[in-house]
């Protein structure tokens, strides 16, 4: 899904780094308490109305659902691969890549005591499409699902979808609880995970408690977890400082050093599976010319912009692929890092003149309501003005308006835009959605028309052999970067401020995953 993190920086004043005080506010004490070792986790945003993975999307709700529900598979510690969760062993894949078979562990049970069966798996994967929920696109590559027996399920795909392993992390719900009771299920959810539902208060909190009869090996150390949310960054950081929160999500760049400097707080971070970029309108206007796009690259320094506005909460990224994918697929990131130019105003001016772009041209750059992406847009705007352009319009739009404009391909709406993308740890997520011609007007606002590249991207989705896919993605990405369809910008850390009395808390590259009791960690509140 597109990154939509709107930041209203109303309170940077609070970034003044006050000395941490461990004195607890009455009723807001952190750490051990009468009600056991419960964790208070403060998120960035509020939740959906229903805690039902079939209908709910959005990271905050997913973070809660991840504790209640389990998938056949889940991501490993660094999100480079999937590991069995409800499944027993690896999935079997047919030679043509169309049929996938998974076994369910015998001991797997739901919180209501029922066994997890193939029928539940079949139901969970079919429901989003049958009910036409917002999540239908996540599983609509499945043509049919067959429950071979109680514990064996077979998926038949419409085409050999190479990234289907990541689809197998889809949450499994008990059919007996949800079927015919869809409305209520989201407010009293039942899963097979180690934490079970207690209650929620709209706009206030969500509470889960340890399921003592959890079927798996990893019983949580914590007695429960309470989620609340604080949208304003400075207030969230103040909360970890004053003991109002045990863990806070997302340490913003301007407050990173403050949190690092706190005596009783540490930062846990992992690079996310994300990508932020500056994109060009290749459909209309001067940016349809690759030479003009190169001139824009010369007009400003992306390195400086990232250094000033994103680091240390994020890192410079030179391709559409986050580091976890680069590592897992052995992509030539070093070569791609050589492609962007250093800032050279004279060179930029020369290229603009060669391309016949007059200094009276009215540039239009649009950015979503996010400080970092705004900073990138502003850097481009300043660079163009330095080149000599008199009319550079740079607009920070709120999401509703931005989403209406960014994929129209119209010169009147934009020459350039900044946006981000987060997806599954597969190259497909960072190529198909951003560059495929069939997604123009949807998620591809560039209208980059290169049939060869498009074919590579489409073929790579259905290619079962990983090495062949790798070569396809490298070839397509080389052209995309050389043609400067995007100027890759940065990736963010999934970062957390963690109070010292919380032990074994680990970050994860998948922003929806908050590992509490896994094969690699087990959080405790001491």
């Amino acid at each position, binding site marked *: *899904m*597109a990154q939509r993190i*709107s930041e*209203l920086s*109303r*309170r940077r*004043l*609070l970034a*003044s780094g*006050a*000395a941490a*005080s461990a*004195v607890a*506010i*009455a*009723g*807001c004490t952190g750490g051990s*308490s*009468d*009600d056991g070792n*419960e964790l*208070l986790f403060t998120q960035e945003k*509020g939740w*959906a*109305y*229903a805690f039902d993975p079939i*209908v709910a*999307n959005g990271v905050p709700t997913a973070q809660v659902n991840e504790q209640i529900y389990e998938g056949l598979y889940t991501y490993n510690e660094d999100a480079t691969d999937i590991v069995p969760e409800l499944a027993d062993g690896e999935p079997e894949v047919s030679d043509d890549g169309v049929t996938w078979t998974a076994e369910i562990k015998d001991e797997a049970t739901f919180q209501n005591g029922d066994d997890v069966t193939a029928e539940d798996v079949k139901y969970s994967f079919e429901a989003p499409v049958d009910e*036409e929920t*917002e999540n*239908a*696109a996540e599983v609509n590559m499945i043509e049919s699902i067959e429950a071979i027996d109680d514990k064996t399920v077979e998926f038949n795909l419409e085409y050999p979808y190479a990234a289907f392993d990541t689809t197998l992390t889809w949450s499994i719900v008990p059919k007996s609880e949800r079927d015919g009771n869809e409305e209520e299920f989201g407010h009293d959810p039942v899963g097979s995970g180690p934490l079970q539902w207690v209650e929620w*208060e*709209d*706009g*206030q*909190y969500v*509470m889960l408690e340890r399921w003592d009869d959890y079927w798996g090996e990893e019983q949580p150390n914590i007695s429960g977890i*309470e989620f*609340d949310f*604080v*949208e*304003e960054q400075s*207030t969230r950081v*103040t*909360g970890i*400082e*004053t003991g*109002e929160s045990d863990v806070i999500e997302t340490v913003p760049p301007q407050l990173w050093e403050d949190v690092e400097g706190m005596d009783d707080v540490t930062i846990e971070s992992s690079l996310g599976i994300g990508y932020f970029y500056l994109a060009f309108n290749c459909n209309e206007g001067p940016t349809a010319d690759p030479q003009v796009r190169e001139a824009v690259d010369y007009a400003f320094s992306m390195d400086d912009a990232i250094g000033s506005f994103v680091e240390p909460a994020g890192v410079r990224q030179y391709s559409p692929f986050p580091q976890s994918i680069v590592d897992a697929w052995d992509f030539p990131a070093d070569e791609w890092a050589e492609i962007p130019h250093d800032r050279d105003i004279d060179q930029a001016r020369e290229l603009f003149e060669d391309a016949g772009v007059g200094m009276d041209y009215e540039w239009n750059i649009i950015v979503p309501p996010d400080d970092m992406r705004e900073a990138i847009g502003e850097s481009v705007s300043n660079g163009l003005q330095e080149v000599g352009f008199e009319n550079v319009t740079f607009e920070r739009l*709120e*999401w*509703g*308006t931005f*989403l*209406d*404009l960014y*994929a129209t391909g119209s010169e009147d709406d934009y020459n350039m835009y900044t946006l981000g993308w987060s997806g599954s740890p597969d190259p497909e997520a960072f190529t198909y*959605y951003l560059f495929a011609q069939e997604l123009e007007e*949807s*998620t591809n606002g560039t209208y980059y028309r290169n049939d060869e590249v498009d074919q590579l991207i489409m073929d790579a989705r259905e290619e079962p052999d990983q090495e062949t896919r790798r070569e396809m993605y490298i070839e397509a990405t080389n052209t995309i970067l050389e043609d400067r369809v995007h100027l890759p910008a940065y990736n963010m850390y999934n970062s957390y401020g963690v109070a010292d009395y919380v032990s074994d808390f680990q970050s994860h590259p998948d922003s929806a995953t908050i590992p509490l009791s896994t094969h690699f960690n087990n959080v405790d509140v001491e």
Partner: protein
Amino acid sequence: MTIVFFLVNSIPGDPVSIMLGPTPSAEQIAEVQAKYGLDKPIYERYLNYLASVAQGDLGESINVNSGMPVSELIMNRLPITLLLTVSAFAFAIATAVPLGVISAKRRNEPTDHVARIVSLIGVSTPSFWIGLMLIIVFATHLDLFPSRGLVLPWTEPGTGSRVTRRTETRLEILVLSVKHLILPMITLGTLQMAQIARIERSTMVDTLQDEYIKLARAYGVPENTIVRKHAFRPAQLPVITIIGLGLSTALGGAVLTEFVFEINGMGRLIIQGIYQRDYPVVMGTTIVFGITYLVGVIITDISYAYIDPRVKYGEEQ
């Protein structure tokens, strides 16, 4: 309501694209539009909405809490905002009236100058800045009050979030509630306090120069008695008017205060609704704000009769 309906619907941006994200199919878009009636022409939507509201149905939230009845959302959030607003007014009146009266009594003396400067600062300082300063000083540095949230005083002890779940008595809940309320209450109430204090002073000054007051002085009635028994009540009419009018400002101020203190009341709800193009939420909150304002005006009018016996309703004069 009509104006708000057409204004909200004319803002660029589509609730469905916000709801479904960047990858919906045409069928999904059509299905969601049909579900929320967004596929119909705007005049038809307007008439349907009026018909629903007439039956007490404010519709379902599209994006803020997709699928949740707006009335339920409002019922959750309204008590929070009312608690904040009523407390802020209580604080404003409790501080402004004595300030104004003392100022009028000590006209042009140092006490009066100090009171007027305090009022001037209160009127000219943005409420969100006051809030930030209060948080920095009293929450972050002195750690006396929480920096976020609100606790409703009628919460059952031992229930709710971690803050209230660790309580055992009503008194503990009440203490928590007051602690959470103090900073936002001062933030929202300062502007009202300053405005009321200025009006209080000027009306008291005028009243203290009326003929019947001069007569009382001539009879040797002590000044304190004059202020308390003869001048105070008649001087409150303009003050009541300002308080009534201040209700609309306070509801606007509640939006900012709720943002600063991360309080999930009506203020944040309406902003979320606007950002996410959640038409039913924006309309529902606007209607409730409108009704609240009308109730405030009616209470103000009724108060006139109580304060000044010369004002009578429902009788031929």
